[in-house]
Each structure stands twice: as structure tokens, then as C-alpha cells.
């Protein structure tokens, strides 16, 4: 019978301390969550593309899309990523006042984006496009609606952080809380860039 590993020498140089984790637990876990969110949105985008051009009745994308309007709202959302970066940078430097300001601006821009989306949806409904009109309506509202819901959750999250900060609950050593919210916010923005390109812009390039 072999003794196996007993024949191997014990490893000499053992790092006695736990090597510091390259990514804090919370941030790491959140990255993983976002990875799975990517697949969720990919499935909805895939559904949109798979059903593209299969609608039997109108309105069709070309009939309703208002590219200039959506460009403006996309710009607003992208700007909010910038202000979010500024909020995170502020808390990392311990500047709570600046962080509060930028959080407020970010949440506000998120609300403006949602306002645009609400306006867009009502316009589309007026033109006769609902969830049940055709598969374009179904997959369009589902995809952009889920994105909008994510923005809304993000706004609630930012406002909660802001309230917490106003009561003095967020200091430099709580920066991770803001960073994680930032990750989420950027993720939602990136998803929008994909949606804007694939759903809106490519419609006119086809």
C-alpha cells in the first residue's frame, strides 16, 4: 500500500496569514450578481431579436421610434454615470458633502430618464402599440420595461443612501456601500447602451 501524499514533503513556505482577498466579499459577490444579470438581459435582447420582423400587424418599430428623443434620454442616463463616478470618488476622499450632492444629481438624472421613458411609452400606446398588439410590442416593452425597472430600483437605492448619509450614517469607511451602488448604476447604463444600439439604432441601419 502506498502512503501517497505522506511521501511528499510538507510545503515549506506557507503564507501564515490569509492572503488578503483581491476583491472584498461584498464587491466580489455583487460582480457575480451582475454577471448573471448580463445573461438575463442577454436573454431578453435575444428574444427581441428572435421575434424581430415576425409581427403580423403594425405598428412596427420604424413607425414609432423617435430617435432624437431617445438620444437625449440616453445622453441623460450616460451623464448620470459620470455623476455617479464623482459621488464614489468624493466618498473615497472622505468628502461626504460632495458625495451627497452627486448622489442627488445622479438620482435626479435617473428620474429624468424614467420620465422620458414614461413619455415614450404613452406616445407609443397612443400610436396603437401595446404589450398585446404584436410580438414587437411584447418584446419591446418587456425588454425596455425591465431596464426601466432596474433604473427605478437604482433610484430608490440612491435615495436610500442619500437619506442614510443625511443622517450621518455614511462616512469614508462605508465607501463600499456607495461603490456597490455605483457598480449597479454603471451596469444599468451599459445595458441601456446595448439596448439603444441593438433595438433603436440598428433598426435604421437594416
Amino acid at each position, binding site marked *: *500500500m*502506498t*502512503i*501517497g*501524499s*505522506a511521501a*511528499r*514533503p*510538507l*510545503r515549506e513556505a*506557507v*503564507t*501564515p*496569514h*490569509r492572503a*488578503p*482577498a483581491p*476583491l472584498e*466579499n461584498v464587491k*466580489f*459577490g455583487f460582480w*457575480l*450578481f451582475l*454577471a*448573471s*444579470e448580463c*445573461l*438575463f438581459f*442577454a*436573454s*431578453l435582447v435575444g*428574444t427581441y431579436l*428572435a*421575434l424581430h420582423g*415576425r*409581427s*403580423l400587424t403594425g405598428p412596427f418599430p420604424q413607425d414609432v421610434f423617435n430617435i432624437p428623443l431617445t438620444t437625449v434620454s440616453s445622453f441623460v442616463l450616460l451623464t448620470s454615470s459620470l455623476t455617479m463616478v464623482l459621488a464614489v470618488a468624493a466618498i473615497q476622499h472622505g468628502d461626504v458633502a460632495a458625495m451627497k450632492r452627486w448622489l442627488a444629481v445622479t438620482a435626479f438624472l435617473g428620474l429624468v430618464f424614467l420620465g422620458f421613458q414614461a413619455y415614450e411609452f404613452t406616445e407609443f400606446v397612443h400610436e396603437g402599440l401595446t*404589450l*398585446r398588439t*404584436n*410580438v414587437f*410590442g*411584447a*418584446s419591446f416593452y*418587456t425588454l425596455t420595461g425591465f431596464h426601466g425597472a432596474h433604473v427605478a430600483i437604482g433610484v430608490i437605492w440612491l435615495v*436610500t443612501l442619500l437619506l442614510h448619509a443625511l443622517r450621518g450614517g455614511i462616512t469614508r469607511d462605508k465607501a463600499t456601500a456607495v461603490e456597490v451602488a455605483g457598480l449597479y448604476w454603471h451596469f444599468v447604463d451599459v445595458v441601456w447602451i446595448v439596448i439603444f444600439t441593438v433595438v433603436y439604432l440598428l433598426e435604421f441601419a437594416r
Partner: protein
Amino acid sequence: MAVGAEKLVGTLRKPREETGLWSWLTTVDHKRIGILYLATGFAFFLMGAVEALLIRLQLARPGGGVLSAQTYNQVLTMHGTTMIFLAAMPLIAGFFNYMMPILIGARDVAFPRMNALSYWLFLAGGIILNSSWFLGGAPAAGWFNYANLSGPQFSPGRGIDFYLLGLQVSGIGTLVSAINFIVTILNLRAPGMRLMDMPPFAWATLFTSAIILFALPPFTAGMILLMFDRWFGTGFFVPSAGGDVVLWQHLFWIFGHPEVYILALPAYGIISEVIPTFSRKPFFGYTSMVIALTAISGLSFLVWVHHMFTVGLGPWVNTLFAITTKAISVPTGILMFNWIATMWGGDLRFTTALHYAVGFLVVFTIGGLSGIVNATSALNPQLQDTYWVVGHFHYVAIGGVLFSLLAGLCYWWPKITGRLLDERLGRRSFWLVFIGFNLIFFPFHILGVLGMPRRIYTYAPELGLSVWNAVATAGAFVMGTGILLLAYNLVTSLVRGQPAGADPWDGRTLEWSIPSPPPVYNFARLPLVRGRDAFWLEKRSGGGTMQPAPEEEHGHAGGGHGKGGHGHAIHMPSPSYMPAVVALGLTVASYGGIFRSLLVALIGLAILAFGIFGWIFEDDSGYLLELEEDVA
């Protein structure tokens, strides 16, 4: 009223009981959560088994009259759904929860409360699904729930709604626990443990969790689309509206095939712990095992179309996916060689656990071979949807999953309970399970070749299917007897089993270096790991026991960390009601969805919000547990 609410939060906030029902409701200890998963999973397994017996009774004779056609469809659907989502996965999660943190020398998982949440969501999903029997009828569209059979037109009742909401609720829990395990494994290993020192079971946990992370979202998306079809009249899966039924199949099987490996990899992991221990040899070909697991995890996402060979995607697509499917058998074969080579020349001890492990090797090989036949896209149209396929996947599902889970149960039972099982009784029940199993499922292959379709609730006597069906049903009773004998063994062991001691099997890995059952904090001092098979190494060429790692100065290590200095205190996470409250909120909201009641849904969401904000503002940093000075 505000004062009342505050008081309520106050009492809820500080659960302190250490025993009794409340302590189980609020526990965040990975071991207790593991036990909850194991017990609940076993209960659901028994329900699934009863459903299987009903199926077999109905099919025992031609023209059977035990179940009506509609009831048969419901029983069949609930059998598959229960076995996969409510029995196999939770039992696996039970082992992950209980054992994996100890195997890597951690005090707890990275997010103990999230871990509790995972369990409560699984339980909620199970309750939602099974309540369908009493609240309007169980789903009847198969565990794959194909659209548009499951759409509003062909499944107008509420059954499918129970399926959709039950699986989404438990799915959130599964996703959360996958994240939890990945972070735990990568961030919380004991000092000195490199990735390539991890026990195989930890590797299996890591890869399984990664597969869950990427496979579950497409299924969730599919279920949401189907929900919209049913609630709002969208036409995603309604061809007459321009929708596409094959889209459901893609979204389902992109999840459904990796699901097979979500079940199989943990099985591989358990077998890879049991075989070396009872062969008294280190695992043969460790590096190739890691590579094989990586390859299987990657390939598992590239084969889903083999469930759709007969859909008509064309010969090129079918050929491509036939090739990727067969490619998976290469890394699986490597693992087989690893296990056999580990036993080769080993000092084998034929415990019950090793019986199940070897039973696994035999049965899983047969299942793999019949799978190769399925994967031949030219043969598939002949075998698709016959009992051949049912035989194949039960050889894999029971051979792979159930046998290895039982191997793990017999192996780790002494660690979990501190008591030994009766080995003689254990071996007897093994033989009953093994023989019964083959009696049931081997004839399925023959029935399949004879042309018996699956999902039929009866058949005519002149088809020549009667004999093998009768054999299969008799086998089901033999296997059932074996399972009951096992249950008897477990119960008597709890009552009057021999005390096990810390290391009954002369084990290799860290769990055997701590008392049985382990204390709440697992390791009084975190062990210093000096190589693979850490405990075995210390027993053979070290001091015989694990050396404690130098205490850490700071750094929050999830479940807790030692405080530096003389007074030895361990940081523990506090128990909490909030995970259960969050799960309750989602459950109530789901019933609101199922019964189309906005009011109930809003009440559920209110409870949910209360749970989430309570969780956030509870913000409890845990407590310190003082230990006697000299424990090591």
C-alpha cells in the same frame, strides 16, 4: 402605531434563543442551514418517490386504472419537477452548506444571512409548488413546461402559475447561494490553502455554482415571458400571434442541459471524497480532475440542442451539437479513470459509503453509454420520447445523483450527527436499492426500443409491453423497501447509534480534524494548511493534528475571525428573522400573482420591503464568542 411598529422591530431584531423552533427560524449557521436543506430535501424526495410509485402502479398492467389521464399528467409533472428542483438540488445544497466551508477550513460562508435567505426561498418555492394540489390543481405540462402547451390556451387553469412562481422564488434562492459559495471558496479558504490544495468537493461546489450563475437567468427570463403570455396576453409563444414555441425550448434547455451538470458535478465531488478515503490513497490525477471539471462546465453550455434534434433545426446544427455532446464524454471518462485508478491497488474498506460509490461508477457508466446512443443525431429520432430516454436519464439522475448523495450521506453522517450508522443494515439497504433500481430502469431501455412512448398514461395489452412494465413496477417496490430500510437505519442511529468520534474513517480532509458534530465556530483556531489532503498530511508526517494558523490581526472574514491576542474570542454573525421575513413577503406576493389579486400582491411586497429595510438597518455586526484559553 409608529411606536408599535418600532417595538415590533425591536423584538424582531434581537433573536437570541439558541435552541428550539425560533433558533432554527433565525439561524445563520451554515451547518444548521445544511441540516434544514437535507431534511427538507429528503421530505420532498419522499413525495417525489410516492409520485413515482403512483406512476409505476398505473403502468404496471395494460389499461391500468389507478390514475385518470389528467391526474397522471399532474403526477408525472410534479414527480419530475419535485425530484429535480425540490429534492436533488436541495440535497446537494445541503452538502454544500454543511461540508464545503469545513472542507476549506472556514468558519462560515461569506454571507451567512444570504445563506439563510437561500434556504427560506427554496422552502417557499417548494410550498408554492405543492400547494397547487389543494388550490386548483397541479401543473400538467411536464417538468420542461413546453410552451405553448403551458400557455393560456392549452393550460387555462392555475397549475402552470404555481410552477412559474414556485420555481422563480426558489430560483432566486439558488442564485444567491451560488454567489455565496463562489465568494466563500475564493476568499475564505484557511490560511495556506492554495486553490490546488482544495478537496475535490470544493472544486465541484465552485464549478456547480458558476454553472448556476450563468444557466439560471435564461430560464428565469423564459418563465417571465410565459408569465406575461398568461397574464397580459402577450404572444411570445403563440404562433398565431407571430410568437415562437421553439424559443421556449431554447431558453429552457440552455438552462436545462447545464442543470444536468448542476446535479452531476456535486456527485463527482462526493465520489472523489469517498473513494480516496476508503482506498487509503490520495486522489489519483488531481490536476486532470480539475481540468476535466473545467472542460465539463464549459461544454455543458454548448450542447443544449441535443434535446431538440427532432425540432427541425437542420442537419448541420444537429451534427454540430451531436459532436459537442459526445465531446463531454472525454472529460467524464477522465474522471472515471481517476476514480478507478484511485481504487487500484488501494487498501479498500467496503463500507456502505464505498458500496454506493462503486454502485455509482457502474450505473453512471451505463447511463453515459446510453447517452452516447441518444446523442447520435441519426438514431435520436427513433429513440426520442420513448422509454429509452427515460431509462437513460434515470440511470444518470439516480445513478449519478441519488447514489452519490447516499454515498455522501453514509460518509458524512457520523460527522454531522456524531453517531455511526449500522454498517450491516446499510449494506443490506444498498443491495435492495441497487437491485431494485436496475430492475426498474434497465427494462425501460428495452421498452424504449420496443417503441413505448414516454408520457403515456396507459397502453394496450397487444403491444407486448406488459411483461417489462410489470418487472419495472416490481423493482420500484424493491427499491422503495431499500430506501425505507435506510430511513430506519438513520433514525435508529440517531437514537442509539455508536458514538463516532472525530475521525472514524481515518479521513484526509479538514472536517475530520474537528469534533463530531462540529461546534458552531467549526475551528477553535483556523488550521494552517500545508498541502493537499491537509489532515492526512499532518497525521502521516506532521504533528498528528492540525496546527493553528497564526491569529489574524484584523480583516472581516465573513463568518468570523479570531481576535488577536490572549483572550480567545471568535467573531460570530448574529441570528436574524429578516431572511425568513423576506421569503415570506415573496411567497405572499407570489400567491397574489397566482390568484391575480393585486391586494395580496401588494401586501406581499410590503412584507418584502419591511424585510429588506429591516435587514439593512438591523446592521448587526455580530458578537464575540469567548472560548476557553487552551482549545486548539
